[in-house]
């Protein structure tokens, strides 16, 4: 059970890291995610059923996500459409595309197919239970992606992306085209989401066109829960807390799903709970800000 929560938390943390990039670093609320997640799943599942290596399938799922993100960024950049609307447009169009990718079907099972998980299981041998094998595998996956992201955001390009979410004028004044920056940022973000979709399809054993429904809210909730854990301005801590937030969020969802009946909750209420969780996070953040303001009103001591 605890392994299950951890595995899901780690798997979806790849998606949450993507959401973190758009919402927190770029300040570009991107809703493409609801479409690019099932896109990644659909691409991976289709390729695997056609006998393509599951690792290559993941790579293509990543590329598919990047393409979806670039479409959103281009709509926003070239047609001057607000970023929210651009994301909704791409997400809506992706629903049709995903069904086409799945071969005009709404879902595609992956029973008895070679996935990265079956390969890893073979590698570990029978000495490990499935749950522990998956757990070790996804710990490695999440950490590798986290470290690559940390590295990326330390490069000159990564730093500039970081500044863009905070101050677009500064980036323009620096001689950088912010349209390219948005293309790169939103593309990368959705690439991660597509990759997470690819993993999810292989983990669950099927791809479904409705897999992405509400996934953006789950990602956002994970990011926000993570922000309560620790305060920092270091990118390595910021990405780490997204992963921890994702695990905590899956834990809460698990509690809701299996013990919610004690307070008359059904699994259908989970979306409501997720929304309320986000609202609660927002309220707490607001209260913290207010506290800061009242602290400022008091005379400052020990300052020249």
């Amino acid at each position: 059970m605890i392994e299950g929560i951890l595995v899901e938390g780690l798997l979806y943390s790849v998606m949450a890291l993507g959401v973190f990039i758009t919402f927190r670093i770029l300040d570009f609320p991107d809703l493409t995610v609801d479409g690019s997640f099932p896109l990644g799943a659909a691409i991976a599942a289709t390729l695997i059923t056609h006998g393509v290596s599951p690792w290559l399938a993941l790579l293509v799922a990543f590329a598919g996500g990047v393409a979806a993100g670039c479409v959103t960024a281009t709509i926003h950049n070239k047609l001057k459409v607000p970023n929210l609307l651009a994301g909704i447009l791409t997400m809506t169009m992706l629903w049709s595309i995903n069904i086409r990718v799945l071969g005009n079907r709404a879902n595609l099972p992956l029973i008895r197919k070679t996935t990265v998980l079956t390969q890893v299981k073979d590698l570990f041998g029978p000495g490990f239970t499935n749950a522990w094998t998956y757990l070790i595998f996804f710990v490695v996956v999440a950490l590798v992606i986290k470290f690559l992201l940390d590295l990326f955001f330390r490069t000159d390009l990564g730093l500039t992306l970081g500044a863009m979410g905070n101050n677009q004028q500064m980036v323009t004044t620096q001689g950088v085209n912010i349209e390219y920056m948005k293309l790169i940022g939103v593309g990368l973000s959705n690439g991660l989401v597509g990759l997470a979709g690819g993993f999810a399809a292989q983990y669950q054993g099927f791809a479904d066109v409705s897999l992405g429904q509400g996934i953006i809210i789950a990602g956002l909730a994970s990011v926000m829960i993570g922000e309560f854990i620790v305060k920092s301005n270091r990118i390595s801590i910021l990405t780490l807390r997204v992963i921890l937030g994702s695990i905590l969020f899956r834990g809460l969802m698990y509690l809701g799903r299996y013990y919610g009946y004690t307070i008359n909750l059904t699994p259908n209420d989970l979306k409501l709970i997720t929304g309320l969780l986000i609202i609660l996070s927002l309220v707490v953040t607001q209260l913290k800000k207010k506290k800061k303001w009242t602290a400022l009103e008091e005379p400052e001591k020990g300052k020249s």
Partner: protein
Amino acid sequence: MIRLEHLSKVFQVGTPNENPAIRDVNLNVKEGDFITIIGSNGSGKYTLFNLIAGTYPPTEGKVFIQGKNTTKEPEYKRARYIGRIFQDPLLGTASNMTLEDNMMITYKKGFKGLRISLNARIREFFRENLEPLQMGLEERMKDNVGLLSGGQRQALTLLMMVLSKPALILLDEHTAALDPKNAQIVLDLTTRFVEEYRLTTMMVTHNMSHAIKYGTRLLMMDSGEVILDVEGEEKRTLTVEKLVDKFHEIRNKSFASDEALLSND
């Protein structure tokens, strides 16, 4: 260095609110000029800067930078040779990033690659450049810029801009949002950098005595036109009284021409 030819900007063309913000401005900025620009609200100083920086295109006319016609170049391209500082200290730096990250971003102009340039050597270079500001910023390179005061942020922005070696710097009332003490510090720093790095500078100010005291050339703007352009000896002997007298002299003339226009109608 910078040449403006018959530059005009009209906002809301073809509406009842049509507003000519810049009218037929011709200007030649020479290398090494330190120009102060003065004028009341709505005189077109801000629009002039936006036209030079490329925030929006002119309605008519051309902008030449270093002999190159840049009228059609977007803002980010022109920004490679222009350093600009705004009145709002928040616009020059990213508040949720550290000092060293901010300095790294602005250190080189243009598109950034996948290289990690922030290393011990460049940190030492930043530290050496922060020390002369005498604000203790060299000890706070890992702090977020959001923790600095407005004056510190504007001084940092100024330093960051100078280190990126622009050909022209546009200072848009960059001390107006600061308290008098910090404004003076940033202004002193500005003149020091302009002399040290021989920067071609255009500085908008509200303060007449600042416009006279600083710089090598003075422009006065009114209703979208440059009505006064003095430099050299004439600029050195200028006083606030003389400037006000000149302003009235020119203003009266324009009143007279308005009357002439009306009577002809």
